[in-house]
């Protein structure tokens, strides 16, 4: 046997296990674990794999609905879209690896989420990313942004799955801990979904894909499940290295094999590698497995069982197949140039026996490993900062006479400026499904061989969540739904990625609890099931936590793909209308941050009833073909939304003239981020019909201006408030992010 270290309390601690947890291990298995077994418990009981801090809260999310074919607990969630098809989707974080090694961290984040999708028998058809960085003035931020975008571009493009949209935010709270949340959506036959199950005794365990190397060992336990500090750089070896070419081959080979009925179950080897995939598949079928590690294809000689079991080498899958079909399976994999080997079999007893060089190195019951970690009852307490920043007194904010300066500053700020610099590095068109290209409220993909399309939006305003995690999280759900509604879709499902600080701090757990409740309540009200998700904790550096960032991805369904709506104004002379009403809500706004460097006050109020109503009204306008564009008002408020509709006009850039009669402060009227508002445009002759429909809905609706001309003009109570040349401001909006990234000091 290899020279394995003696189990000591220090070794247990180095494996991220508390002394209580170690005692529990002793109780559950009735003896001391050996070194390899300790490694197994270390990864499986880590926060990242066990969800021990978050699980009690997550149980409260609504996960059911008539379209739900598979809710949380599998590799991804599945929603039926009719015509024999289902969409399979999930969002997942890869934050810590991306901070340490941005290119590989982000690339393997994309690879991992894609495997979660095709593992279920679905072909990945769309990727999206929610990215959050620190301030762009910091050269490290620019290094990270370049690296992350390059990593996503390199991996996604090579696999031939389009990256169709997402979001990119900058705030100083992410200076020491960036967020990289990757989303993937796949398309499957609704009766062709595969689950991560091992089935009955005698089935064979087939290892598929890249050889196992020494990379990524303890990525899940030591990297993902602790805070950053001075030693963070030393953890770089825990970051995996991706190979998108192998991933592409793996997609094709797996989907080909999954056409056969002798495939019992599939799981990718992601976090905790061969360990989690084998234990979890066995556990789900109340069975066990016997494996021989000597048969695992290895990248290098001399690897120990500990290393083989804990490696997080990428692009590997574990198949369970019925005996007698291994030759056929291996021949398909060889055709695609992939490694494959039968490494074990399913056994009846719920135990995992692992041999290496003819010796048993692991002998553990499955339950304690997979489900033995105790749910932690973490304390929660509202943070003190809420008392200091909860009030925003508008009287103390100097009110500008004209809005031009603030308007231009906002158009140029990286959170509002066009993200073209990012998405032009992603292949967003491959597979010919992208009906609405990036830069819109939602990405829209047609479903070939049907009349349908799906719309996807990824959202979270973390400033709102910092000020009020409950309300902020509910707003993220509402905005996600509103975005897909603006594209003509009905929301049908949601996945979330909950990024928070250190759960051992009661204030962080309070933020978490509030945000999950906010998502849950909003989803229940809007009737959207949460079908998958991921929790990322310990997002803090030297005690400084990120803003609570519960990112949600909402998926919507368009029944008739020819009725897809876009945000750009279409023609000169069209009326511009506003659905919803504006209040003096500057708390947590981009205006407050960019002009006054403040993030305080209360986030805007979300009136859920009003929100539902606005969405229903907007959808009816689209379905009845009464409108030519629809665009959600979010960061930067109404005036930025109108400007974006001008910029996104497909043929030429259209100017606009807006007229308001209002008693609100001018800056609040322009830049308030009041919820439940949508900017639409339509030909003048439809005005009466739309107003009539609005009346029948008792909907706040007003015609606020007209498209056309070379100027962008806003008049308030007859006084000119903003007047700018449209081409000039478009250029500022378009090029500002690229200029920031390109700066050299």
């Amino acid at each position: 046997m290899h020279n394995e270290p003696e189990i000591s309390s220090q070794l247990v601690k180095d494996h991220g296990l508390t002394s209580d947890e170690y005692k529990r291990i002793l109780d559950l298995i009735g003896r001391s674990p050996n070194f390899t077994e300790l490694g197994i418990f270390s990864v499986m009981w880590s926060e990242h794999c066990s969800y021990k801090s978050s699980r009690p809260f997550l149980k409260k999310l609504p996960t059911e609905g008539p379209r739900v074919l598979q809710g949380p607990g599998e590799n991804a969630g599945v929603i039926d879209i009719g015509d024999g098809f289902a969409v399979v989707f999930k969002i997942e974080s890869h934050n810590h690896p991306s901070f340490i090694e941005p290119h590989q961290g982000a690339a393997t984040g994309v690879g991992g989420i894609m495997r979660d999708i095709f593992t279920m028998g679905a072909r990945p058809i769309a990727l999206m990313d929610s990215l959050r960085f620190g301030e762009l003035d910091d050269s490290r931020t620019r290094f990270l942004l370049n690296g992350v975008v390059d990593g996503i571009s390199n991996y996604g493009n090579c696999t031939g799955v389009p990256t169709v949209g997402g979001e990119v935010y900058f705030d100083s709270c992410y200076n020491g801990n960036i967020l990289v949340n990757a989303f993937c959506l796949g398309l499957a036959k609704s009766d062709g979904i595969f689950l991560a199950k091992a089935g009955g005794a005698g089935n064979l365990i087939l290892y598929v894909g890249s050889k196992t190397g020494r990379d990524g060992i303890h990525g899940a336990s030591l990297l993902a499940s602790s805070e950053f500090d001075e030693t963070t750089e030393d953890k770089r070896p825990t970051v995996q290295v991706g190979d998108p070419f192998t991933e592409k081959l793996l997609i094709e080979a797996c989907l080909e094999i999954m056409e056969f009925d002798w495939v019992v179950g599939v799981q990718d080897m992601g976090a905790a590698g061969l360990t989690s995939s084998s234990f979890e598949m066995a556990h789900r079928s109340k069975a066990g497995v016997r494996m021989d590690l000597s048969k695992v294809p290895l990248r290098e000689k001399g690897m120990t069982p500990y290393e083989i079991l804990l490696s997080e080498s990428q692009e590997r899958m574990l198949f369970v197949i019925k005996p007698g079909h291994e030759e056929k399976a291996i021949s398909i994999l060889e055709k695609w140039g992939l490694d494959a080997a039968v490494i074990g079999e399913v056994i009846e007893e719920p135990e995992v026996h692992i041999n290496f060089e003819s010796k048993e190195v692991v002998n553990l019951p499955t339950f304690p490993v997979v489900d033995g970690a105790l749910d932690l009852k973490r304390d929660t307490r509202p943070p003190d900062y809420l008392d200091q920043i909860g009030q925003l007194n508008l009287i103390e904010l100097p009110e500008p006479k004209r809005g031009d300066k603030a308007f231009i500053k906002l158009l140029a700020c990286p959170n509002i400026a066009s993200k073209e610099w990012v998405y032009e590095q992603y292949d967003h068109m491959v597979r010919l499904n992208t009906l609405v290209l990036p830069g819109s409220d939602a990405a829209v993909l047609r479903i070939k061989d049907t009349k349908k399309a799906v719309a996807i939006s990824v959202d979270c305003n973390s400033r709102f969540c910092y000020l009020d995690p409950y309300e902020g999280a509910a707003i993220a759900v509402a905005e996600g739904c509103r975005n897909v509604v603006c594209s003509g879709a009905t929301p049908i499902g949601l996945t979330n990625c909950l990024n928070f600080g250190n759960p051992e701090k009661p204030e962080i757990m309070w933020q978490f609890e509030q945000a999950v409740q906010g998502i849950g309540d909003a989803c229940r009200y809007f009737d959207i099931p949460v079908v998958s998700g991921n929790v990322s904790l310990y997002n803090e550096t030297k005690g400084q936590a990120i803003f609570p960032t519960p990112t949600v991805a909402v998926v919507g369904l368009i029944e008739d793909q020819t009725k897809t709506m876009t945000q750009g104004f279409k023609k000169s002379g069209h009326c511009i209308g506003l659905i919803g009403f504006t209040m003096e809500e500057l708390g947590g706004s981009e205006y407050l941050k960019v002009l006054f460097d403040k993030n305080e006050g209360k986030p805007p109020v979300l009136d859920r009833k009003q929100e539902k109503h606005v969405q229903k009204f907007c959808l009816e306008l689209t379905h009845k073909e009464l409108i030519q564009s629809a665009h959600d008002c979010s960061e930067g408020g109404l005036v930025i939304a109108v400007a974006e509709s001008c910029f996104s006009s497909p043929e030429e850039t259209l100017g606009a003239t807006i007229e308001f009669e209002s008693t609100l402060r001018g800056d609040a009227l322009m830049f308030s981020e009041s919820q439940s508002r949508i900017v639409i445009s339509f030909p003048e002759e439809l005005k009466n019909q739309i107003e009539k429909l609005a009346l029948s809905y008792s909907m706040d609706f007003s015609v606020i201006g007209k498209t056309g001309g070379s100027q962008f003009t806003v008049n308030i109570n007859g006084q000119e408030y903003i007047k700018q040349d449209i081409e000039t401001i478009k250029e500022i909006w378009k090029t500002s992010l690229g200029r920031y990234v390109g700066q050299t000091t």
Partner: protein
Amino acid sequence: MKCGIVVFPGSNCDHDCYHILNKVLGQETHWLWHKDDVDLSSFDLVVLPGGFSYGDYLRAGAISRFSPIINSVILFAEKGGKVLGICNGFQILLESGLLPGALIQNHTRKFICKNIFIRVETINTPFTQECKDQSVLQIPIAHHQGSYYIDPNSLKDMEERGQILFRYCDAKGKVTAESNPNGSVSSVAGLCNEKKNVMGMMPHPERCADPLLGNIDGQNIFQSLLSQS
């Protein structure tokens, strides 16, 4: 028209080409596997699609040129068969010696995916005969190694022989430095061999040929090929 689409490991626009040729244009379309060295004489068109064959490792197209199917494609081309290489397919045609010159990294040093414009430089080829001379096509690009290079003398010869098919231009058809997205020499976006039966281009005509996606400028190229069969 009987079309064949070569599938290399890592090809990812193969399904898109199939969709356009078969589903949109209604042509008989077959897959051709990279490991097979087969007689292609019954085909009217062979397409080398875009993607990242062999992960673009070493250099885009450098490994694929050794695939058995390339022998078949060379033989097919020598006999006058029409070959269309798009993006990665273009890179493979250059590496195989079926077309002259080379493609290097974009001058921006980044992958670029966006709609751009190209100008039709000659309609005296089987790939452009249904286009209007000097007309402007809106078409997407998606590549990292798309900057075309060839020495000035060879370029001059190719121009004289009418081998330059497309140049990057602005919306009005003007060839300018700003409208050249990748730094290609003389803004070359697509070219053919002397016999004019092998064509390679970096932009993706298959991405602008399905009416549902709006722009169908790419159909001009496929219709040119169709009109001969």
